[in-house]
């Protein structure tokens, strides 16, 4: 049975307000797939529909070859979920929690093994209210793995964690992939998505605005590259905008930021302009579009769209 996720034309309304508007994507078996988007973009709503916490208004969801609406219980046997915040009862111990949740499945991993794997071996008998934020999050992950899932859903798993815990969690997620799991995670950390995900879907205002591998998305950002230029005195913006290949000029305070479709032509024209104006070059950086650029450009465009 393929451990994949296929979502087709998913809609979710809260009353009359659409939170998810026709989302479609496919997660291939064994990949880490990221749903990336700003807060309120519809990531959590999409995920909640996928894991069966909410009924979608419309659309098809197939997980491990099963229709998630019809075979909801069979799907739940095959998936593991770690929600954004999982608070358990104050007085439950990590071991009891794993045992309790394990008992809800036909097949489950023994508590000591699972707790060891998520670095909670020494905290097995500690009560939930004594665990740190990172330990709680690891316990949530352990619970997501209690049934040996084929697909794991993680909703903003690193939110609220310190850098050390975040790094540890990333390693756990990579291990999931190495163990043959399919991972679907939502995040608003660009860096996280870039480092972890094989593929990403950028979601904004309930719609997928781009899908692809992080490097594809960056490359596909219209081939645009950014030049950060510092000169004394500063060159006038209108003249910079008129340079060959330049599509956009931004005054970033000490530096001018240019976006160019043809860096070679822009650099050549810039050299000529600097000589003509007799300005001194202090700093010049050329870099490719980052995921952040892609993200900001796409989501900004989306927010502008309704007005257009």
């Amino acid at each position, binding site marked *: 049975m393929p451990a994949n996720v296929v979502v087709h034309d998913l809609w979710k309304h809260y009353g009359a307000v659409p939170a998810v508007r026709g989302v479609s994507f496919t997660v291939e078996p064994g990949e880490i797939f990221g749903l990336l988007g700003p807060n309120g973009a519809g990531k959590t709503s999409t995920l909640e529909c996928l*894991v*069966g*916490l909410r009924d979608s208004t419309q659309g098809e969801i197939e997980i491990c070859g099963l229709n998630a609406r019809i075979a909801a*219980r*069979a799907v*739940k*046997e095959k998936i593991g*979920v770690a*929600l954004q*915040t*999982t*608070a*358990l*009862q*104050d*007085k*439950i111990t990590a071991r*009891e929690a794993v*045992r*309790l*949740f394990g*008992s*809800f*499945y*036909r097949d489950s991993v023994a508590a000591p093994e699972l707790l060891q794997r998520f670095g909670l071996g020494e905290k097995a008998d500690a*009560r939930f209210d004594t665990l740190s934020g990172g330990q709680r999050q690891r316990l949530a992950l352990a*619970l997501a793995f209690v049934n040996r899932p084929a697909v794991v859903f993680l909703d903003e798993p690193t939110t609220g964690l310190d850098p050390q815990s975040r790094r540890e969690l990333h390693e756990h997620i990579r291990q999931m992939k190495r163990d043959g799991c399919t991972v679907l995670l939502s995040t608003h950390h660009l860096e996280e998505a870039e480092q972890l995900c094989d593929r990403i879907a950028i979601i904004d205002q309930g719609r997928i605005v781009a899908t692809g591998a992080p490097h594809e998305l960056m490359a596909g950002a219209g081939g645009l590259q950014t030049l950060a230029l510092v000169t004394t005195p500063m060159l006038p913006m209108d003249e910079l905008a008129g340079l060959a290949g330049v599509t956009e000029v931004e005054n970033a305070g000490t530096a001018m930021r240019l976006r160019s479709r043809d860096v070679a032509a822009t650099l050549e024209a810039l050299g000529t302009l600097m000589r003509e104006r007799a300005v001194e070059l202090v700093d010049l950086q050329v870099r490719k579009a980052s995921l952040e650029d892609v993200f900001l450009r796409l989501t900004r465009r989306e927010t502008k769209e309704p007005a257009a």
Partner: protein
Amino acid sequence: MNGALEHLSTSLRLHFRNRMALLYGYLFPLIFLVAFWVLYRHEKIPLLRHMGELLTVSVLGGACFGLPTAMVSERERGVWRRYRLTPVPTWVVVTSTVLARYVIVLTAGLLQLAVALAVGMTMPEHPVALMVAFSAVAFAFIGLGLVMAMLADNVPAVQALGQCVFLPMLIIGGVAVPLASLPEWALHVSAFFPGRYAVEALQAGVSGPGLGGMRFSLLALVLIGAAGCLAGAKLFRWDAQQRFAARSGRGWLVVVFAAWMAVGALAEWRGRIAVPVDAAERVTAPVAVAPPAPASLPTPAAVPPPPPPPAPWEKITEQDIAGLDYRVPPDEGIVSPIAPVDDEPIDFLAAQVAEVRRQLPNWPPGDEPNDIQAVRNLLYVAGVPDAIQLPSERYLPRVVFDHLTERYPKDKLIKILTWIAMHPEEGMVIDDISDLGIEGTAGDPLVVQERAYLYAIKFIARLTGRKAN
């Protein structure tokens, strides 16, 4: 199945780790028990007549506070949301939560029973019937608790809702305040509350007629419980974000109210409102309202085989008299008071007391051929005003005492009073002496019986020169 059992055992373990839950679930009912024990300390068998009320308080606390508090706090934290991500159906988790609660209230009830036995209560007369009644009471209140858990959006709301159910049931629902002391309108109201049926059913198991005497109460409790469980299931919400006000299916609440209304209407229709039937049945003899025709009074001595030649009181020995418990409330207190000799009533009280003194020698129940019953009836003339707490309660005991000492030789009177004090729960009870010009009805014949016993002790002490209290 495995999941349900694991959830059940985890819920129980977590309950016993939660200090607040223990406080509310166990200590709180025990405080009630101690309060009742102190309040009714002069009753012959401690707490026996109040176990129905005490057990009801236990179940009410556990089911209507404990259950919704635990459920709502877990829902607020997202535990129920997390359960929903697993393949186990929600009803399985709800059922094991309810079962865990049943075990919890059962342990609280058993603890209460154990403490009551430790302070001298006798074993319940019908343990099996008591268990049946307890289960029905738990079912009714757990159903109610489920509805409250679905109504309340957060834990403070549970507390507020809980008080709205708990306090009226305690005060005018027949749980903490005996029905007999409530006004007529409150009796009608109490018929619509499950608390009254809970007390009746449990008491019938502790000191009443057993299963036979609790049929109506059981029916009422099961009906109320079933309505609660149905509405609770239909209104179930696993996510704290689902607010009650925005929830569909709120109409199911009507089912709960309909069940309460149906039970109340049925009680009205069957005429079960005014008289606390079970309370009267608890007395070994029926209640008589004066003036009873003397011939119609079946005396305990006369009803079974023909009376033995020597009257029972004649066998009373000095040892019996010395063996009585003379620790009775002080004369100046509110229970069984006797005015000092130099305290004479004035104004209308003087007239009322004088009227009783004038009528007493010709009062038919006081002229009963059976001496024991006659003295008992005369003691009720002191007991009834005390039970109702009339202004004349302090003066009438002396009138009765004077009449008794005039009517009977001293030794005989001491023996008769001793016999009565040794058999306080026997004989006919008169709880209405309006034919002597004392208006009002005591309501609970057991209270009258208890007061008659106290006066018997006080009179013996006076006659034999003993110190009472």
